[in-house]
């Protein structure tokens, strides 16, 4: 049961219930659609970059609590950051969710709420879908998948 509480922390349940930035952006500079073939979940990610700075991010789609909360937390965390910072954070986040649960990981603030997936290897994909989609959007690919 403690594992479950690690996975479904308050922050995650809250962002699942009331996802932030859950909307489309009319004229995004970057867009990608993420797809998790394992569960059929789809995620549309809209990004607006001005110069080097991400001025807006938003998403739409259906997904489990983990993938929805992850997308919600990510969009909150990246607004106002530079593209380079976002890419660096992608690497750090990826490292956190893929490090074995018995090893220490750096604190990423609210994003660390997702570190609980380390106890649930099949759910790591759910946590990373939004981030992979972001990477694809910034690379200007249009469809990405976590498989």
């Amino acid at each position: 049961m403690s594992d479950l509480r690690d996975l479904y922390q308050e922050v995650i349940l809250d962002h699942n219930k009331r996802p932030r930035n859950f909307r489309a952006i009319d004229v995004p500079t970057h867009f990608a659609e993420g797809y998790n073939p394992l569960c059929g979940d789809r995620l549309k990610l809209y990004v607006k970059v001005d110069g080097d700075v991400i001025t807006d991010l938003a998403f739409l789609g259906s997904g489990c609590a983990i993938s929805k909360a992850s997308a919600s937390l990510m969009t909150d965390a990246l607004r106002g950051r530079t593209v380079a910072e976002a890419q660096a954070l992608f690497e750090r986040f990826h490292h956190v969710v893929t490090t074995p649960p018995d090893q220490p990981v750096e604190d990423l603030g609210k994003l660390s709420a997702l570190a609980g997936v380390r106890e649930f290897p099949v759910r790591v994909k759910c946590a990373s879908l939004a981030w992979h989609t972001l990477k694809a959007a910034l690379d200007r690919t249009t469809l990405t998948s976590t498989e």
Partner: protein
Amino acid sequence: MTTTTPLRSASASMTPPRGEAAVRRAFDVERVRADFPILRRQVHGHPLVYLDNAATPQKPQAVLDAIVSYYTEINANVHRGVHDLSERATTAFEAAREKVRGFFNAREAREIVFTRNATESINLVAWTFGRTNVGRDDEVVVTAMEHHSNLVPWQMLCEAAGARLRVAPIDDRGELLVDELERLLGPRTKLLAVTHMSNALGTVNAVEDIVRIAHAHGVPVLIDGSQAAYHMKVDVQALDCDFYAATGHKLYGPTGIGVLYGKAALLESMPPFMGGGDMIASVTLEKSTWNVLPYKFEAGTPHIAGAIGLGAAIDYITGIGFDAIGAHEAALLAYGTEALSSVPGVRLIGTARRKASVLSFVMEGVHPHDIGTIVDREGVAIRTGHHCAQPVMARFSVPATARASLAMYNTRGEIDTLVRALERVREVFA
């Protein structure tokens, strides 16, 4: 020798209790459970409650013994040696084919082709029968409740042949609209491919009627029996279907062994599927001629242990009997339907009047993945996702469902455990 172990253990589970000899084949679920060693294990500190049988059921000891005994005592290649072991292996392999023939009541053993799984059985028909009979502007008909295995091969065939795929619709209960299906059958229809039972919805199709209707239009029928074959008696002669595909691992047998039944005349008329050893009669550097049925379709060394394991599984199933299995599973499905319907926020997907062993559901405000993870921590194994039936999910406007699916060894107590686990889900997502 390969058959003694399975038979012993199969008959042990059906021996009536002392003094009740008259009640032949009284079904005792606890005795059946004792035949499945994996059911004794724990998961996350809880007794395993295995409700993912539609994906693959567990294997009885008799099947495990048959496989070990084959590799321990007679391992050799089949159809190609004069030595003792090769002869024994060939005899055991062909004895397994005969068991499969009897199980499906095919007229002849040569109508039973061993494949890897149902998917390969269906692809075999698509690439041989399909390639020779389906041409430009022809049509293949499927239904909206097919597993991807009985959809994608036909899409690929139609794409390659310039043919059209027509899809018979289903209603809100998940029942096939047979009238609509009949309307799709015409002079251009070269094949109807339909599932006997839906893995995502549990719907059991009236295949006996469907075959009759299709034949009245001159259309041959392939039935995907992957789900049906371990829940109910299948008689391919009574059904009069042209092809019947089944998969060994869902018949309580090992993975990697599948079955294609085809009417002999049809199989004779079809070109081979894959080329290689065993499937030829003679080979020169320029040209080869094909072996007789069923070997024409069995290129390369087959899954000998798999076939023998499947034979043992069939002995096990028939030792208990589909009357007993069907009655037990039907009662359990009724109990489970009632129990799940009483959980707040749960909605069943797939409420066909004729239905077997599948409880597909969604829960308000909770994604199936989260349900799956939480109940797993209580030892309950269910499947979550699209069940390789994305068009079915689209039809019901859900991205995924949670699915509890039953086998002969499941109990009411296990359904109760699932319901309690779903209450935990509610707590987490309160």
